[in-house]
């Protein structure tokens, strides 16, 4: 027999009605918030697994961008002599680009695989599926924060002063997070249905690397190709993320406000489209995965 206590408890819970899904479903961000502890533990799992069995542990987050910066500085700075505007030494320029880029590329790769990797969970337990790509991104944000310290140290070591606009760096990085997360959710949802996305992702990341100003400055794009291209280039939000970060941190030439707005618009569009598609596809993940 139900006791008075459990009856009272049951009343607290609103009725839940399960019906066939419509074509589009609501964003249900409230539900995501209700599962914040799950997101916390999934993120913790990410970090624990990543650093548990490696000798250097969390120091990889520092080491990795340093190695890349060194290699790129050597080849692009000394051997190939890439032209960059301003008077910042190339290694400083490179590391300030590589660190945000590393985050983006890892967040896209890990996020795109996140659903398929946890196929077991998806087919056996109900929870908002967005928790999986979100926790991947959050785990990498921790790495990004650590790697940013490296950027600051390298900058100071080369005798370059940190610009007074440094407080704007997080805003540009946030744009990077939005971009990476948008790409990751879209690819993750597609990957559930089409397994060749796994092959496509490294290719996409490579292409994104070349069209983003990681090792060069985006502000010079269009000098030869013309005005249209100088704007179109910023439809890739990463252009504003990288140029903007370097402007805010190192006082490098800034992209114009119009170009940054193009990037913000394009990132917002990507994120909205990705989440709408994800929400539409997610109800059938368990059937397909």
């Amino acid at each position, binding site marked *: *027999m139900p006791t008075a206590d459990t009856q009272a408890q049951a009343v607290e*819970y609103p009725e839940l009605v*399960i019906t066939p899904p419509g074509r589009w479903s609501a964003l249900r961000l409230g539900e995501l918030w209700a599962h914040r502890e799950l997101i916390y*533990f999934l993120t913790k799992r990410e970090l624990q697994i990543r650093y548990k069995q490696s000798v250097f542990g969390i120091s990889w987050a520092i080491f990795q961008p340093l190695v890349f910066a060194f290699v790129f500085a050597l080849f692009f700075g000394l051997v190939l002599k890439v032209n960059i505007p301003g008077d910042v030494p190339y290694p400083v320029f490179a590391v300030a680009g590589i660190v945000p880029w590393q985050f983006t590329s890892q967040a896209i790769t890990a996020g795109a695989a996140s659903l398929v990797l946890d196929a077991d969970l998806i087919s*056996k337990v*109900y929870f908002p599926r967005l928790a999986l790509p979100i926790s991947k991104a959050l785990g990498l944000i921790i790495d990004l924060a650590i790697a940013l310290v490296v950027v600051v140290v390298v900058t100071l070591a080369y005798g370059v002063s940190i610009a007074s606009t440094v407080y704007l760096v997080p805003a540009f990085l946030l744009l990077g997070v939005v971009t990476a997360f948008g790409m990751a959710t879209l690819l993750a949802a597609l990957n559930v249905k089409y397994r060749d996305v796994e092959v496509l992702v490294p290719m996409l990341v490579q292409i994104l690397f070349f069209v983003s100003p990681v090792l060069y400055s985006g502000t010079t794009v269009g000098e030869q190709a013309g005005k249209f291209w100088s704007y179109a280039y910023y439809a890739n939000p990463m252009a504003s993320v990288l140029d903007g970060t370097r402007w805010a941190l190192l006082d490098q030439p800034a992209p114009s406000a119009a170009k940054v707005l193009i990037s913000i618009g394009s990132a917002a569009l990507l994120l909205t489209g990705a989440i709408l598609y994800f929400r539409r596809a997610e*109800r059938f993940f*368990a059937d397909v*995965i």
Partner: protein
Amino acid sequence: MRGDNAIEVNDLSKRYEITGDQGGYMLMTERITERFKSMGRRQKPQEFWALRDINFEVKRGETIGIIGHNGAGKSTLLKILSRITPPTKGEVRLHGRVGALLEVGTGFHPELTGRENVFLNGAILDMKRREIQSRFEEIVEFADIGPFIDTPVKRYSSGMQLRLAFSVAAHLQPEILIVDEVLSVGDLAFQRKCLGRMETASREGRTVVFISHNLPSVVNLCDRAIMLSEGRVSAAGKVGDVIDAYVGDVTSDLERGLRDRRRHGNGKIRFVDFRLEREGQVIDSPITGEDFDMVLSFEKHTQEALRGSRFNLTILTLSDQTPLVDLDTAATGTTFTEIPEQGELRCTVHRCPLPAGQYYVDLRADAGGERMDAVNHVSELTVAGGDFHGRGGTQEGIMDYRTVLVDHTWSLDAISTAAFDALSDPARTPG
């Protein structure tokens, strides 16, 4: 929704579309080729109704059992109730927090410690962190893990992993608890503990939906039961009546000839007859220690040669369905180059290792990773006692456990004092 109902299921149906080879995920290139192939004529995807117009309600505090054969729709119903997959038609109304124990240990990560996994798994099962913290000691004690709680789970025995996983799940306290077969795992003592836990849950006024093959525990735990057959409710009511219907259904299926039995598989091969032989003579029962043949007649319903076909016969005890003997062409390395249109598959068991008793045989045939034909309980085997060890008598009354007989010998020798002392030398004992 009526005030005292915890669950209402109205006209619930679920359709699966079988696209591509097996449904599920595919390659984009496959999808594109498919589009091209079906250009002009719009191909209707193959449909399969896993559930059809299901209606039932469960009152608050009630424990209901869902029974049915494999493929009857039990797991689909479960997945809809636990919101893993949406229905195609109809609706479910739930009143209260739902907790589902679908498969314990989902989300356990081998690299993480027991403690870390308890919190992660709890969060996955929708427990609040504070809830887990306050019950942590209880969970560890129930699982009987003791000092290993801070050891990575990959170092646990499978039994320990299972106990810890179930323990987390068992401490979930939703108003509606959905349980699937979890009790069929683990050792007997732990199973009893889990059953006790579920009884407590229902005494505390929780609504429990229990999906199981284990008829005795359904009878013990449930007030009412529902039987599903081919996606529809075929019986519902008092647990005793529904189980009678289920048993009756199984019996009537068993009375049919092999050709008309309930089965799974794509039908490329269909077994139609089963008989026992000894030295070319048809027999009723094998004798312990003597050779016998199981002969299966089949028809092939495909042009394919079915190279790489694999056949399996499993012998299980009739009383508690424990698999005792697994006979498999893959295990013996037997391959057949071509399967004829009609044929007989013969499996000879040398020196029947089964002690006298009642057994039954399950049959499976696969090719290319696909099930062609599978029939549970193809036939019963009544083994007559015989002289396995050639000592001039049967095993009856000698063996403590009913297990298979193994050809073996014993010997006994005297050893020297020096050799004996060396055995108890502490230097030899592994540290």
